[in-house]
């Protein structure tokens, strides 16, 4: 009897083992389904993130980072006579969170405007008037690198009336007021309006914009900010 009981007990044990094994067999299916669901969600999320990044939002997201308004001597209105103005060293545009040192830009061998080697800094065109002197000083910066935003990524968000600060050697400061922000097809670049003579102290900020042509690796337009020295 005790042996019989023992056997029954073993059978029960065995049958119990059978039940738990069956559950184990069923559970992996559910687990696999759950995993599959997660995979789909993750893939979709990754897709969204990727596409969201690729399709740059047309409107600004969030507030610009805080950039302090530079301190220093405010340049007086341009005088009628030629007085020396020192070289520009740094640029600050609090409205769009730009703060960068300025490199010097010349011409490429083909005679085009040289652009900064780094997408993170802007540059002043050395053959343009110095910022604050009579004439339009020209500063260019990249909208982006191969991977992400450049120093002038948000240039097109500037609006008339907003201020642009150019620090010059010996800590003098030229303050410019934005008068216009315009986008031009590169094939119709407004050479005279950017590089031509003007009777007061002005500033032109240049970056890329419009449609990107993957075939040539270039944007089809330039975004140009026009600004005048704040009297």
């Amino acid at each position: 009897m005790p042996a019989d009981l023992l056997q029954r007990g073993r059978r029960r044990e065995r049958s119990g083992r059978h039940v738990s094994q069956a559950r184990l067999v069923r559970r992996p299916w559910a687990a696999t389904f759950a995993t599959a669901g997660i995979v789909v969600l993750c893939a979709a999320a990754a897709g969204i993130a990727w596409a969201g990044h690729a399709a740059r939002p047309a409107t600004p997201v969030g507030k610009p980072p805080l950039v302090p308004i530079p301190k220093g001597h405010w340049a007086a209105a341009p005088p009628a006579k030629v007085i020396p103005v020192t070289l520009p060293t740094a640029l600050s545009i609090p409205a769009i969170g730009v703060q960068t040192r300025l490199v010097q830009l010349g011409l490429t061998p083909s005679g085009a405007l040289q652009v900064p080697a780094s997408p993170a800094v802007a540059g002043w065109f050395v053959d343009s008037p110095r910022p604050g002197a009579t004439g339009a000083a020209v500063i260019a910066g990249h909208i982006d690198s191969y991977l992400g935003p450049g120093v002038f990524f948000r240039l097109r968000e500037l609006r008339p009336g907003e201020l642009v600060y150019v620090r010059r050697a010996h800590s003098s400061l030229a303050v410019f007021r934005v008068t216009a922000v315009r986008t031009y097809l590169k094939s119709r670049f407004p050479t005279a309006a950017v590089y031509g003579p003007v009777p007061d102290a002005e500033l032109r900020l240049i970056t890329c914009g419009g449609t990107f042509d993957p075939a040539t690796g270039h944007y089809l337009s330039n975004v140009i900010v026009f600004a005048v020295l704040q009297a």
Partner: protein
Amino acid sequence: MRTATKLTRLGRLAAATTAAAFGLAFGPAAIAAPAASASSQVGWIRLAHLSPNAPAVDVYLYSFGSATAQIVLKHVSYGTVSGYEQVAAGDYTVAMRAAGAKASSKPVLSTAVDVLAGHAYTVAGMGPASGLRLQVIPDQLTTPRGRALVRVIQASMQEDTVTVTAGNTRLATNLKFASVTSFRSVKPGTWTVRAVGASETATASINLTAGSIHTLVVLDEPGKLVIDDLLDADGSKVEPAGAARTGFGGTAARPGAALLPWAAVGAAGLASAITGTVLVSRRRRPALHAR
């Protein structure tokens, strides 16, 4: 059967996720960027006193029809030329009063100026005090490529006429008092400019860069002539060819790139389909075992 239902649910989920991904991925791209536009219909005016024997004056600039002056320059004496003031295009009145005279008093002189957008003007008191007049001199804001522009205003009363040269280039020949030459294109460089009158001569070393526009004013100083070099306008010495290549496309919307979420969701769907198939075939196996 249950597996099939699960698979259908999974399929629905996948479809819904795909739709959501599509909506989120392509939604923002569909919003067109607003084109920034701002018209700057402005011109420039500067004011000058170029009458040697006329006393100092107060110069007022009024928008036409307005009783309140937009700009007032106090105590402007002979030889003074203001900087350019940017003004909205339109009609203006320039009035001169004796220095210190009330703004409400009758002006000694006044003239109308029609400011066109993108144009600059010099409004100068010219001539002898006895025949003082306000003259509107149109300025120029474009240079031939790679050249400088120069003109001369003869504001010396000591010399009836002057001849002005920059190197070997004649800028003015026997130019009469209170008159102005037209602009002349000059090769960029530092030039020795000479103004020669009947009794006096003035010399100045003047740097004329490409893209710059200068007005040289011949002025009287006690017992001598001087040349005042005014930089009317300046631009880039060299005009770069074409546009600026200021982007690499890292933030650009590209049609190829936008297909990736599709591919990801598609791959996920495929994965779930395969999993489902595997599950269905596995379900049959334990049934065989049970037998």
